[in-house]
């Protein structure tokens, strides 16, 4: 009798231990993070990382009762390296989730691998339209934006509110430029406006003089799409060539994003752009975020930084919903798609069924407040999806925006 009870007790103990071990796996949650940390895009990569680090600090590197281990890799903005680092993170470090990449080319290069490995992946910045459209991957969740998303909204705004009827566009000559201009052109012309001139500059441009001399001065506005140092240089040279006072300048958000705005001068005042974020957005969540970011990194939060703060919140919300049990990749992916994080600096975001965010688009104008330049939000277009107001099936039947092609309607 005694033996039976003892044996049963022992079994119960072993059973409980095994069962409990199955319930709360040992070891930290591993998140693999890939961004450029060397080369020309190093600063953007670092900003994205910093946004994530800020968030992880706030939660004490814990979610669902488990420790988080962040493994960061540098992909030098070269797709082959992105793939190599992804292999290391997934196959050697055995991460539970991948996040990051900056360039479209890296994003496209990584997608087949992500699919083959079936690893939940978050793209916080990569904005190539097609990654959640015709070439979408089940395993990739985009928490940032698509290039055409803010521009669809902006085309309509430029016609209706700003009253422009003719616009000349100048943009970097690669997919990001084509998709941004494409989005703007489509809605602007659908309203009745006309893009009278489309100029494309090489991605390596630094002197805009040959292009600025050709811009038609008879248009209502010039739409410019640049980022990083090209935005800085363009803004300066636009004023240099006497266009600043003559033709209003508008553009996509990266042209005046906070990663370059502090380095601009008065030449940027009055420029109107659109993006899913502005550091000057006046909400409690955003004020808290930008203050914390400034305290820690001593600079203004850019959309790069915000992107992985929000992306990070998405990841944490999903992991929290699973109670920290992230080993099942399919469940983690479902949780990612179903997550409803709150407290995002940019406002309310939901995910559409293609894995791309539906969010507010902010129309901003550059103003100087308290001696600093900022992107003051002058209008908000709520619940903008990657398809604008079009039916997704119809939208996808048309080809992707390209250098030459923009669907009419």
């Amino acid at each position, binding site marked *: 009798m005694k033996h039976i009870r003892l044996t049963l007790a022992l079994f119960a103990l072993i059973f409980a231990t095994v069962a409990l071990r199955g319930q709360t796996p040992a070891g930290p949650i591993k998140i693999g993070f890939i961004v450029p940390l060397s080369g020309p895009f190093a600063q953007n990569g670092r900003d994205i990382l910093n946004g994530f680090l800020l968030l992880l600090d706030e939660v004490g590197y814990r979610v669902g009762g488990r420790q988080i281990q962040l493994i960061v890799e540098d992909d030098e903005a070269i797709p082959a390296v992105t793939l*190599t680092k992804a292999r290391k993170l997934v196959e050697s470090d055995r991460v539970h989730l991948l996040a990051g990449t900056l360039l479209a080319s890296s994003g*496209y290069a990584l997608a087949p*691998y992500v699919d083959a490995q079936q690893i939940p992946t978050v793209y916080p910045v990569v904005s190539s339209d097609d990654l959640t459209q015709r070439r979408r991957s089940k395993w990739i969740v985009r928490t940032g934006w698509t290039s055409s998303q803010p521009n669809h909204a902006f085309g309509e705004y430029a016609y209706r509110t700003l009253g422009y009827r003719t616009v000349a566009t100048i943009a970097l000559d690669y*997919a990001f430029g084509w998709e941004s201009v494409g989005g703007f052109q489509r809605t602007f012309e659908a309203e009745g406006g006309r893009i009278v001139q489309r100029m494309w500059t090489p991605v390596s441009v630094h002197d805009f003089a040959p292009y600025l001399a050709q811009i038609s001065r008879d248009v209502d506005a010039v739409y410019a799409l640049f980022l990083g140092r090209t935005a800085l240089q363009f803004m300066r040279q636009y004023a240099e060539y006497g266009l600043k006072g003559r033709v209003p300048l508008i553009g996509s958000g990266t042209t005046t994003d906070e990663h370059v705005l502090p380095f601009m001068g008065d030449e940027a005042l009055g420029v109107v752009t659109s993006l899913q974020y502005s550091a000057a957005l006046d909400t409690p969540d955003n004020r808290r975020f930008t203050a914390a970011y400034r305290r820690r990194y001593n600079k203004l939060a850019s959309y790069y930084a915000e992107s992985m703060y929000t992306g990070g919140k998405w990841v944490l919300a999903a992991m929290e919903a699973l109670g920290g049990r992230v080993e099942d990749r399919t469940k983690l992916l479902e949780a990612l798609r179903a997550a409803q994080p709150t407290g995002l600096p940019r406002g309310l975001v939901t995910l559409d069924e293609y894995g791309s965010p539906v969010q507010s688009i902010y129309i901003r104008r550059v103003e100087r407040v308290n001696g600093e330049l900022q992107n003051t939000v002058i209008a908000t277009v709520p619940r903008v999806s990657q398809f604008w107001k079009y039916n997704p099936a119809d939208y996808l039947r048309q080809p992707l925006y390209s250098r030459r092609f923009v669907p009419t309607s």
Partner: protein
Amino acid sequence: MTVTVDSGSRKPLGLPNAAGTSGWRLPILGALAIALVAGPLFLSSYWVGLLTQVVILAILAMSLDVLLGYTGLPSLGHAAFFGVAAYAVAVLSTAYRVDFWLCVLAALFAGTALAAIFGLIVSHVRDVYFLMITLALGMVLWGLSYRWIPVTGGDNGISGIPNLLAHAGMPWTGPVAFYYVSLTVLLVCAGLMALLVRSPFGLSLRGIRENEHRMRSLGFNTWLHCYLSYVIAAAFASVAGVLWAYYNGFVSPTYLDLTASSELFLMVTLGGPATLVGPVLGAGIIVLLKNVISAYTARWLLILGIVYIVAILAAPKGLWNLGKSRT
């Protein structure tokens, strides 16, 4: 009148050569061989992947060695042929769904034919002018890969290249199998290149490197030799390009840019030009350095630069040529 032969050409079996150099090369070669042949059986898939990269880039580096080390023509645009072949595989296998052997042949043809054309305008220049013209041609091809969007996909590149083993109809799967396929290709190419540099043609190339005027006065058509060396080097670079496209599953303009050509150049000169083994070593060192160091610090580029400077100070003729005397 004898043409001085560089004592750096290793026989595949690693027999000591007659130039009286120290015997440290033999054990290193042995260790290398064991690592390459047996390593993947014990390593995780990530390390197998890294070794595969080393093997493929070793083929590329050896091809540049034929041109740079043996013929003395420094090319800063060699990655262009590697890239062209890779793109050929990408375009044919994705847009046209061409079957494997045709893809490979077409890619090899593309790289070699391009070199045959370019060779016509580069084979008469030497030294820094050769460096510049190859740099310029490399940039032109890079520009093409960037701008010819309907074919190359521009900045986004082309992805979706099928798995090599599946595409070729081979019965095996997985990274280890791919590795051994690449290793086989490396051994075949290395064997061919070794035969080449030992042949009378190869010896003439070395003669041209040492003293072109003398070779010409002996009646050699140095222009033709340089032309053929350029084309042959490009052919082997194309082989590497084919493997690289299949390994990554995509192609991008970064395969052909100046950074790629410079890194390739570094592999050869760090490892030791005119040895064939040196470039393999150089490829290994650079791939491993980049990947291992970058796991620990973001400052890996700085470290690589310092390592490089120190290596040149200590071994100006490359690591594999350390201790060798050359006349």
